[in-house]
């Protein structure tokens, strides 16, 4: 199952062909994956806020930064409360690697080319994470509070995907 997330994530980030085999993720791994996914979007938002001069892109990026920080703060509070230590795993590593590569690609772009590449990636990235949340992470989560937070995350990411699609239309 975890392999599917990795493949989907890599495909979404334009890096097909790498696969990591593993069983269903454990709660400490799920917490790590969810947190990492949020941090990746925060890093992408910070880059966009710095580079873009387009008001729609900057406003969208600021919203991503604010929302994902809020969710990740909740995630940290929850793992602390539960006494769970998030555990690094191949999915988190693959996500981070693909995201770092994507940041490097985007860094070379400027102006409208950057704006379009950023917002298109936001649509694809949220779509991938939504698929992973609903298909793998939420069903695999054992702790009820973790599952509930992931469900909140899914609702948030789904709205973000919709929001990204609305912004992306302006860059066709």
């Amino acid at each position, binding site marked *: 199952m975890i392999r599917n997330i990795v493949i989907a994530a890599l495909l979404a980030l334009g890096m097909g062909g790498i696969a990591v085999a593993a069983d269903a993720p454990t709660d400490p791994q799920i917490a790590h994956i969810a947190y990492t996914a949020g941090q990746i979007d925060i890093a992408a938002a910070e880059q966009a806020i710095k580079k873009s001069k387009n008001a729609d892109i900057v406003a969208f990026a600021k*919203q991503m930064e*604010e*929302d994902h920080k*809020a*969710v990740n703060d*909740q995630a940290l509070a929850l793992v602390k409360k539960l006494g769970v230590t998030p555990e690094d795993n191949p999915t988190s590593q693959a996500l981070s690697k693909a995201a770092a590569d994507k940041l490097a690609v985007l860094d070379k772009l400027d102006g409208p080319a950057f704006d379009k590449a950023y917002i298109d990636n936001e649509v694809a990235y949220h779509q991938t994470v939504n698929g992973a949340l609903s298909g793998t992470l939420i069903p695999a989560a054992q702790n009820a509070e973790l599952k509930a937070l992931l*469900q*909140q995350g899914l*609702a*948030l990411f*789904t*709205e*973000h995907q*919709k*929001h990204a699609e*609305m912004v992306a239309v302006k860059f066709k």
Partner: protein
Amino acid sequence: MKTVILALAMVAVATFSAAATEYTIVIDKMKFGPPPATLHPGDTIVWQNNDILRHSATARDKSFDFDIPAKASATMTVGMAGTVSFYCKFHPGMTGTLVVSP
């Protein structure tokens, strides 16, 4: 005399029907809950945000715009009769409609 009583009764009915009612619209998991089926000018709506994120209740016609912090609420008095579409300005995928009868 009968006319006076009738007139008084009509005033009483009019007063009763004009009494303001308070409704709550709950915002949860990035969605606005269902709006009240019947709304009249002067009624009160409490926008209750159960999410861990900041939301807004913003009218498309700009007749109202409330910022609602996480786990907080905002109270508004319903204005004129009509149909008003609203959304969250931070999360434009969140939408709803209020129908206000005279």
